[in-house]
């Protein structure tokens, strides 16, 4: 049994596998399959200050080796999260990452304030949702806006702060450096890539929102590249995600520089994916006589 523990910004995870925000709700839907305590952590569904309905359906479209979604951050608001979801998660022996997705800087600051005296272990500031008109990716596509919002939330919380980055930018490393300089303790990437599908018979986009975020194995190589670039340009931990569906993918992304891995779309195809990735990773490390999973982080040998 290899040592799978990782430490991100002072928070210890029993293993590096974390279901990604939006793919796993608050975990309740999967507790009948396996105990959540098997997972390293959970990145909770993105929470806005007040609840919101999100976009009209259809909100999902299949794509080659992937999917588009345009949920639009449907959630019941931060108070609901604190009162109804957090007490459940507290009992699961798992690192709880609250995903903060305000529409304005002030919203995000207020959400972080409300989380300050809760048991949440970590904040993931979502500056990259492609499916909302206000806020979302608007914060994550300019260095100045990314820096500003990170600074403001940094002041409002003493909890470890991870900022979730958008791949829909010219230079993700510049954004990563901007949030690092603004006080982020970690970055997570990549959020979904903006995409579109059209029904050739009706000439209508399949998504009612016209466009949506692409995830799944199709985005994996893009994610590996961005994780590698970002890991080489900042000094804070990088949590990698984007199309990971097997332990091999997870190992590959850690070699690229990720200190932990989030898994999203693959869970829809197989809800046991996170557990299979943990088991597979452990076996891989044992078979290769690697004692600690941290020994593979960033160990790619570029040409």
């Amino acid at each position: 049994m290899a040592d799978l523990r990782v430490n991100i910004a002072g928070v210890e995870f029993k293993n590096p596998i974390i279901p990604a925000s939006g793919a796993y709700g608050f975990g309740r839907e999967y507790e009948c399959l396996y105990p959540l305590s098997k997972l390293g952590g959970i990145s909770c569904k993105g929470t806005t200050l007040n609840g919101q309905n999100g976009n009209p359906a259809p909100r999902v479209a299949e794509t080659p080796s992937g999917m588009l979604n345009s949920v639009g951050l449907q959630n019941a608001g931060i108070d609901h999260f604190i009162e109804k979801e957090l007490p459940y998660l507290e009992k699961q022996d798992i690192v709880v990452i609250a995903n903060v997705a305000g529409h304005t800087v002030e919203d995000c600051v207020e959400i972080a304030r409300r989380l300050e005296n809760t048991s949440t272990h970590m904040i993931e500031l979502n500056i990259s949702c492609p499916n909302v008109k206000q806020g979302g990716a608007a914060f994550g596509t300019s260095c100045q806006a990314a820096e500003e919002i990170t600074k403001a939330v940094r002041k409002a919380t003493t909890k470890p702060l991870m900022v979730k980055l958008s791949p829909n930018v010219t230079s993700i490393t510049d954004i990563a450096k901007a949030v690092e300089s603004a006080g982020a303790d970690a970055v997570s990437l990549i959020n979904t890539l903006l995409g579109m599908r059209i029904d050739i018979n009706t000439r209508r986009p399949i998504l009612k929102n016209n466009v949506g975020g692409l995830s799944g194995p199709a985005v994996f190589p893009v994610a590996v590249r961005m994780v590698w670039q970002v890991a080489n340009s900042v000094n804070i931990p990088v949590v990698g995600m984007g199309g990971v569906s097997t332990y091999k993918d997870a190992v590959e992304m850690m070699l690229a520089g990720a200190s932990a891995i989030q898994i999203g779309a693959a869970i829809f195809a197989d809800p046991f994916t996170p557990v299979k990735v943990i088991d597979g990773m452990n076996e891989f490390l044992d078979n290769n006589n690697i004692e600690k999973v941290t020994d593979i982080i960033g160990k790619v040998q570029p040409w």
Partner: protein
Amino acid sequence: MEYVQGEYRVVSKKNLAKNVFDFTIDAKNIADLALAGQFVHIKVDGFMLRRPISICEVDKENGTIRFVFEIRGEGTEKLSQVNKGDNLDVMGPLGKGFTILPEDKKAVVVGGGIGVPPMVEVAKNYGENATAIIGFRSANAVILDEDFKNMGANLMLCTDDGTMGRKGFVTEALKERLEQGKVDIIQACGPHMMLKGVVALANEYGVPCEVSLEERMGCGVGACLVCACKTVKDGKEYLSHVCKDGPVFKAEDVIL
């Protein structure tokens, strides 16, 4: 909420009509839990997202689940190529099913096209007290009529073009049935327009009504929130999710 996921053997495969397939899988642990109106979420080789398909019949004694689906796209086409003896990766049973009243109650089940299959398991419960009103485009699309007859249900078969049964929509037959006498519940699955018509009649005659909805789905268990549908809660419009809050809803709770 309780469901399982596993590999289950296909023990029977039939082609009921053009592009309509009837599968039975040996899935005791799903059958033990399954209720009328719930669905199974099926992995198809080469496709990212599972295909949600309603349960047509549950055989608790033999531990099997029957589902009937129509080829609608590449995924269901691939699923139709699975053969008897092959294994399928299935999650289920998922979602909320139909309310089942005591068997002496008078139930009317209404199904349109590929919305007919889930009504079989519902009607089974009421035997001769069930009226099954099923509608299809044409005679060559008619499926499962014998299943309703065999369980003793009063069958009202409709086709749009009159090539089999009565000519016309299920709503006309439903109105006729409601005029004939007491109905305790109406339960329906089918195209959007049909459901609208059924709900309007249920309201007119003051009969409780449940409808089964469909929407493009992701996780199937209520985590990803993609399959949103408009519902009403405390007088306010609210987005529920077909996979977990449905697929069966009380008619008064949904905005069709």
